[in-house]
């Protein structure tokens, strides 16, 4: 039966694709059999199943839908930057089928009602699974603990005051113990505000040259160290967000070898760009943690390759065009990432020889899912059919007009990347189709 994009059937075959799951990119062409939102079967070759619609994916890789452990969808409170609906579309366009939202909205996600609200908003949009995290402290004030138990029951997958550190070490220690009892992680935004002061970029040669206040590595290193020692003492699970320094990578590597329950993520911008990008004072290179030095960039990439860092997470942080028109020191921290993650990963990690494509995909699917115990991220029989079809060799130039996110504050504007998503499916339903890369069939 001919394939039509207009109506995705309940049961169909995807053929002629290279399957990429569990860290391996298949050498031979294979197929995926989808039935009623689940994976009915998969394997090499092309099965003959009379009468089933066939989506011919020649030239494409078929991987589990990507999983992002760190996005800011800004809802409620800052809908001019992003909403759950626009963020979900951006996620789908980037090949993501699951995202973990950060709770630093306005008001913060600090009670079970807010957690349910976000899950509902995600369901309404229907383009991406939303796994909310909750705040550690009410209002992210860093003073007391939120009702973790109630929020986990409502669907929270972890707790963090992301955007800010938890300066009170005793609160952090208790949060790790208490969340540990509930089987969910505490996500650390490792920063020492007394060290960074009014810093706006990495403290080093470029901040000295540009006359911009610096944010020293020691802020991130010492906070990462503190949180790891608290995790060691409590036995709780610490997940370190957006690791950006060589020192933090080394601290995490040692802690893991000593059996501390720690997982960690790194962003595409921290494994691809260094602080020299700030030379034109463009706020599109202003984020927290900041772009660091080439030795840090390499350490983050190596940490991802050798498993010290468990996964890639985008820290997708949309801001309006107006906010990014302030001068560098006045503009807010943060850049978008969902729609460029695959391209940046292939361009900077695979094409540069740091890792193969199978490993990159693993870092965007199975590994993040496992780090936070999310029931997604694998292509296997019986699993829900969250998958992405992408062309790893497609070259494209990042353009502001192309973004589905409500915001366009990307560090990669104008840059040529390799690797683009052709189509994304969640529970067997199409959530994104790139008209240019769409496999043949009538649209």
């Amino acid at each position, binding site marked *: 039966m001919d394939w039509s994009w207009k109506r995705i059937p309940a049961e169909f075959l995807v053929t002629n694709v290279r399957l990429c799951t569990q860290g391996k990119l298949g050498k031979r062409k294979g197929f995926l059999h989808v039935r009623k939102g689940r994976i009915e079967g998969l394997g090499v070759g092309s099965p003959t199943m009379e009468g089933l619609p066939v989506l011919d994916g020649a030239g494409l890789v078929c991987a589990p839908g990507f999983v992002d452990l760190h996005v800011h969808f800004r809802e409620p409170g800052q809908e001019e930057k992003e909403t759950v609906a626009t963020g979900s579309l951006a996620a789908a366009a980037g090949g993501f089928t699951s995202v973990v939202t950060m709770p630093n909205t306005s008001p913060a996600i600090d009670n079970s009602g807010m957690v349910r609200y976000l899950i509902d908003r995600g369901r309404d949009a229907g383009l991406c699974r939303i796994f909310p995290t909750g705040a550690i402290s009410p209002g992210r004030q860093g003073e007391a603990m939120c009702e973790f138990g109630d929020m986990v029951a409502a669907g929270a997958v972890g707790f963090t005051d992301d955007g800010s550190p938890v300066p009170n070490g005793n609160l952090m220690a208790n949060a790790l113990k208490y969340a540990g009892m509930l089987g969910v992680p505490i996500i650390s935004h490792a920063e020492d505000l007394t060290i960074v002061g009014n810093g706006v970029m990495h403290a080093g*040669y470029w901040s*000295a*040259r*540009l*006359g911009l206040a610096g944010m020293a590595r020691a802020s991130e290193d010492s906070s990462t160290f503190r949180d790891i020692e608290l995790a060691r003492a409590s036995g709780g699970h610490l997940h370190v967000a957006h690791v950006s320094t060589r020192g933090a990578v080394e601290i995490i590597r040692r802690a893991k070898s000593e059996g501390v329950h720690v997982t960690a993520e790194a962003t595409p911008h921290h494994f691809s760009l260094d602080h020299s990008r700030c030379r034109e*004072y463009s706020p599109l290179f202003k984020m927290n943690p900041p772009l660091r030095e080439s030795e840090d960039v390499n350490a983050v990439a190596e940490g991802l390759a050798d498993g010290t860092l468990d996964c890639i997470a985008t820290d997708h942080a949309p801001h309006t065009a*107006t906010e990014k028109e*302030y001068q*560098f020191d006045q503009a807010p921290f943060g850049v978008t990432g969902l729609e460029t993650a695959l391209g940046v990963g292939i361009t900077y990690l695979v094409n540069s020889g740091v890792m193969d494509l199978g490993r990159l995909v693993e870092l965007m699917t199975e590994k993040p899912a496992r780090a936070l115990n999310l029931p997604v991220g694998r292509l296997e029989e019986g699993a829900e059919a969250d998958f992405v079809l992408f062309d790893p060799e497609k070259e494209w130039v990042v353009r502001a007009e192309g973004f589905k996110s409500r915001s366009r504050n990307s560090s990669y504007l104008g840059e040529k990347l390799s690797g683009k998503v052709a189509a994304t499916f969640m529970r067997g339903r199409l959530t994104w189709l790139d008209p240019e890369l769409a496999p043949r069939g009538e649209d």
Partner: protein
Amino acid sequence: MILKSKDVLGLEEMSAEEILGVLEIAARFRAVFDRPVRSVPIMRGRTVVNFFHEPSTRTRISFELAEKRLSADIVNFSTATSSFKKGETLRDTAENLAAMKIDMLIIRHSSAGAAAYLAGVLECSVINAGDGAHEHPTQGLLDIMTMRQRLGDLRGKKVTIIGDIAHSRVARSNIWGLTKLGAEVTLCGPPTMVPGALEKLGVKVEHDLKRAVARADVLNVLRIQLERHASKSFPSNREYHRMYGITEEIVRGLKPEAFILHPGPMNRDVEIASEVADGPRQVILDQVANGVAVRMALIYLLSGGDPGALGGGQAA
């Protein structure tokens, strides 16, 4: 064409030839100061906007004087007298300025990079009058002019800059300009104020004041911003003065011809002892006069002024 760009954003962007070209024109304007009629009406009918997004008295007055002597029409905006606050983005500011069809913008802004941003979006010429801790090119040029008046060619000459280099736009402009002209630059101050990373720009970092000034031909003593530091970068004014203040004792250890610059306004008995501030080694009033001349030269050149039309003056 002495200046290749329509703007003057920093000495980083200027070549040695451009710097020397500007200083030569500035020297001719200095010669004009001694005549009874001190104006050169090249800017008649043209509008210059002085947009000061940060308090400044000396630099603004110096620019205004330069503009008046070139017969420009002048509009002054400052944060105190207009709505330009953080609420408005610089792009809005730029669009307003563009709509006013001005001929030149002089911009002082608390954010590093602000002048370059405006230069990129405006068709008119932009002169950076200081952007955050980044650059203050007219100050750099007037400092270099003052040094060259006494030392001639700066190649191999030793210049020591003392103070809070990390937060100083004056220091950065001096570093770029002086190194391009072949001077040997030493930065001096406590490590809290002198980032070692700046050595990559081809300068020396020395934390001991006596050693830093022993062989210097000229000292450029920066103003310590008392309000900024309040017990973070140095323990007290008293201790700063004891360790980095230019005292009579320090002056006695200098080479006999060595002289002292200060961008003003001075904190007497903090970075410089009163006796030294009033003594024979300082050249502060020359700096002030050269400041007007340098600004006239830049405005003149950016407005398409013909260097040949100015008559001779002593070389700077």
